[in-house]
Each structure stands twice: as C-alpha cells, then as structure tokens.
C-alpha cells in the first residue's frame, strides 16, 4: 500500500506547487487533491489517506477547523497547515489540533521536515 497524501487548497496553483514538491521529495507517494473542506472530508471517508496538507486560508471552513474535523476521524494522521501568516493565534490553534506548520510559499526545503517526520510515524513498509 503506497502512502497517500491529501492536498487541500482552494487555489489550484497552490495545489500544483504542493504536488510538485511532494513528488520531488517522495516520488513513490500518491497524491489526492481537494479544493475545500467538504471535498476533503469526503475523500478521507472514502479513501485510505495517510498524510494531509491543508491550506489555512480557505473560504468557509478554514484549515484549522478542517484539521480539527479530520482529527476526529483519524486521531494520529500527520497533518500540516500551510500558511503565509504565522501569527500567534493561528499557531496556538494548530497546536491544539496537533498539526504542524509549513510556510507558504511552499518549497521542498520547507516541506521536507514535515514529510520525513510523517513518514516515520507511518507503518514501516510505507516509508
């Protein structure tokens, strides 16, 4: 079973960038995309998603709220919030749902840390 990453961002451009970075760092991983929270939750219900990358700034349910919802279904899934605004309130909210932070604009270097840690927490054969 390959590791599957869910990328959630309302900007297609941002999703393209994230997908490129992930495929460079973890070429064997599969990628699924969603453009909003409800799509994301549907995909998590129907598929085996192992890691989630959520844009913080989305209309309707934002990244932190989505992370909270995902946590209810998957208490130990590695989740990262992608945001350009690393403000204290947002950081605190993310910590509350046990999500990591990755800065926007997304780069391979910025993403590497999170993906490596995520890989470590997954069952051994998925690395």
């Amino acid at each position: 079973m390959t590791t599957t990453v869910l990328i959630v961002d309302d900007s297609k451009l941002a999703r393209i960038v994230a997908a490129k970075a992930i495929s460079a760092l973890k070429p064997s991983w599969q990628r699924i995309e969603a453009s909003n929270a409800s799509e994301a939750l549907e995909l998590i219900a129907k598929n085996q998603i192992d890691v989630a990358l959520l844009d913080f700034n989305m209309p309707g349910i934002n990244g932190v709220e989505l992370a909270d919802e995902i946590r209810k279904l998957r208490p130990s899934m590695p989740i990262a919030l992608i945001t350009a605004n690393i403000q204290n309130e947002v950081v605190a909210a993310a910590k509350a749902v046990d999500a990591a932070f990755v800065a926007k604009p997304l780069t391979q270097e910025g993403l590497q840390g999170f993906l490596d840690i995520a890989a470590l927490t997954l069952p051994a054969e998925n690395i």
Partner: protein
Amino acid sequence: MDDLLEQFLIEGRELVVQASDDLIALERSPSDSARLDSLFRAVHTLKGSVALFDFAPMGAALHAAEDLLGKLRAEKSEADRSVIDALLACIDASERWIEAIARTGGLPASAEQEGRGLSQTLSILMTPAPGEDGPSVEPAESSGPSSTPTESSTRTMRVDTARIDSLVDLVGELIVAKNSLGHLSAQASAANSPLANAFAANVAGFERLTSDMNRAVMSLRMTPVSRIFERFPRWMRDTASKLGKSVEFEIRDGGVEADKSIVDGLFEPLLHVLRNAVDHGIEDAKSRRSSGKPVAGRIVLEARADGDQIIISVSDDGAGLDPSRLRSVAKLKGLLTEEAANALDDAGAADLIFMPGFSSSDAVTEISGRGVGMDAVRTGIAALGGRITVKGSLGAGTTVQMHLPQAVLSRTVIVAQAAGDWFGIPISGIVESARIPRNRILPIRDGEAFVLRGRTLPFLRLDELLNLPEGGQAGSEAKVLVVSVGSQLVGVEVDGVGERLDVFVRPLAGVLSDLPGVAGTALLGDGRVLLVLDLPALIG
C-alpha cells in the same frame, strides 16, 4: 508557456475580479464583514501565488494591502474613502501587471516604482492619521487611466475579441436552433393537444430568452460613436485652415452606440462627407458675406438613435445643391439620357452625386475627383448594411444622412417567394406591403408604374430583378413590397409573402462575396438556406 505561470494567470485574473467585486460591495456597505473577509482572502491568495515567481514589486504591494485588510478585520473597523481608493489602486495595478505578465512573461519596468508607491500609501493608511498637519492621503499615482475616484463604480474587464466573436457565433447558432424549434412547435400546434400547447408556450419562453441573450451579446460589442467622432475636430480645424475656410464645427453624438464593426466602418465614409462639406459645401468668406451669411460656416455632425437603427447626419449651411446643374452634368457626362435626367425630381437629382463617375466641374465649387468620393461613400455605407441620402436647397446648405443598423447580429427578414424560390428581404428596407390590382399597373416608357396614395412608384418584379424565369402572374392582384431605395420608393412584386423571421445573416465568402444585391445567407430552422437580398443594391 510554463504551466505554472499559465495557472497563475488564470487564477490571478479571477482573484482580481473577486477582489474588485468585494471592494465595490464593501464601498457600498462598509460594515459587510463577509465581504471584507472575502477581499482579504483574495488578496492573500493572490499574494501567495505571486510569491512563487519573481514578481517582487507586485508581491510587496499586495502584502501591504493584505496587512491593511488584516488590520481592518482584526479591529472590526470600516474602510473609509482613502482606504478604498488605495486598495482599488492596488487591485487595478495587479490587473495590469497580470496582463503584462501574460504578454511578456514579466512585470513592466514601471512596476518597481509603482509597487513601491502603492506599498507606501497602504502602509501609511495602517497608521492612524496624524491630524491636520499630516498630508491627506492620495491614492498612489499609477500609470494606468483607471485610478480616478469618480470612476470607481464603473468596472471594466478586458476581454479577448476572439472570445466575444465565438460567443457571437454561438448566439447565431442559438437563433437557428430557436427558429427550428419554432418551426416544429408550429407543426405540433396543428394537433392542438394539451402537450402541443404546452410545448408552444415553452417555445415562446425560449424565444424570449434567445432574444434577451442576443441583445446581451450584442451589447458586448457596442461602441459609442463618439469614439470616432472625437477624431474629427482636430482634423476639421487643420483641413478648414488648409482650404482657407472658416468653420464652426459642432458634434452631437447623442450617446449613440453601435456595433464595433459599424462604428469602425463609419470612419472613412464620414471623413469623405466632412471633407466635402468643408471643401464644397462651405463657400469662401467673400461669397458668404455677399449672400448675407456669417463668415464662419457651420457644420454639424449629429448622431441619433431611431429604433434599432442609428442616423448619422452631416449638415452644413453652405452652397447647397443645384438640381438643374446636377441634371445637366449627368447629361453632359453621358450618365443619363436627356429624358431620364429631366424625369428626375429634385430629390432624385440630389441623389446623382452618388452616381459612379459623377463629378461636377465648376469654377466656383471645384468638385473634381469628388465623384469618386461620394460613390465610394455609398458603397461603404451599404457594406455596413445602411443607406445614405442627401438633400439640400440651393444656397441654403446640404444635409447628408446615413441610416445604419445598430447591430450586426441578427436581422429581421420577410421571406418572399419569387420564381419558385424563397428569399429573405430585410425588414428595415420594407416600407409596406400592398396588393395592387393588376389593372392599375400601367406601362411607362420601358417599364411599369403604379399609383399608391397619390404617389407614382416604379413597378418591378423580383424574379426579373434576380434574372430568374418569370413566374406566372397569378391572380388579379399583385403582391407588392414597397421598398425604399435611396430617397425613392419602389414597388417590387413577389409571388408570395411568407413569415417574418429573425435570422443571423452570414455574409457570402470567397468567390460569391461580390455578388451584388445579396446581403448574405441565413440558415433556416428547417435546414433550408435562405438567400438574403439587398434590394436597394439589386434595384440600384
């Protein structure tokens, strides 16, 4: 182009539109926090996307805008006039920058300075106003024409002409489909069942929607005639002075708009007509003084709307037209026989100036070469689907009037039958239809004529005009369409008159495009191709 950049352009344009919408709405109701949030997100996302590329000045400006918006959200304060203006300037600049990137792959040279200016203005607005000793905050000077505060409620969007053209084509096909549906509906209602009636009602609704859509798409191509009118005053001043004439030039564009192709096509013909007016219409100072006219001649260019047509007229208070001189010139030039020339009434004589080869040489009025001009003008106007007339009285001035369709999208035609075939005749040329008893059609010289309400009109047959075998003249009455040709009315007999349709006239292309008397073809609902005629040209 890099697909990442392509995606950036697509999204960037959408985000700019979203941000503009939000900002305009916010201006109208400053306490609308949902709009503020949406605006913040759009700016934030755009800033994030910009950061992926090397567009630093744009990123800086957007960052400043985002900070300002973030502050408004956090403090739950309302955006005032200067904030709205600054944000609008930033969004306008972003829109322009995106287009520059689309064209050249990068920001224009002016972007750095402009971006800096925008960032500064926006940052200043973040700090509370310093009181009377502080300068009032102006929106950053931008190189675009869009930052005047009074225009902030008119938003425009740049659209590729090709996209509008494909939309126009689609609407054309929609009209064909609508006609087809109407045709079927008519067949179905013969059954008079509840289903057929419901169907007919539905089709009626569909037809209304199609007309609305047609109108909406048509309005996309609408251009004000002032666009070309505003090129004339300067030219008029130069030309008048070159010709040693003194002219007062007045323009009344009446806010009239027409399809872009019509407005563009009007420029040359109007230039000719105006040149004629200042060259031959307006007399020299000496002649004007001796006839008691003010030294400065008056030329008025006016546009007004008339239903689905526009009327453009050029009037001058100059020498006017001399019908007897025009008649003699036509005779002299061998363009008309003595008889034909004398048969012309004054209106007909005036029309002579449009005749190919007509050129009235006269020591005083020097119209050499002008014959070619007016002939070309009539052709030019006809090519736009319009007609041109002239009238004038000797010594009191001339008025040239052009009637043009406002739009080129669809035309209403009457379907008429001749020689066993059906043709479309644009309704704008038809004055009325009448039934004339055959015994009232009288031979005149080598033609025929009839009297309609006290006027004698020439009588022609459509099949003859089209050089088709003459159909039998059935019945004791002739079905006649009275059409206007130049300043004259002419009766044209047809074998049958069918329905009235809205059709999209496709001009003939290629080998057939010079066929005189044919405006184009139209595809009918039942698959037939209707030849749409240009009767005035046919009768010509």
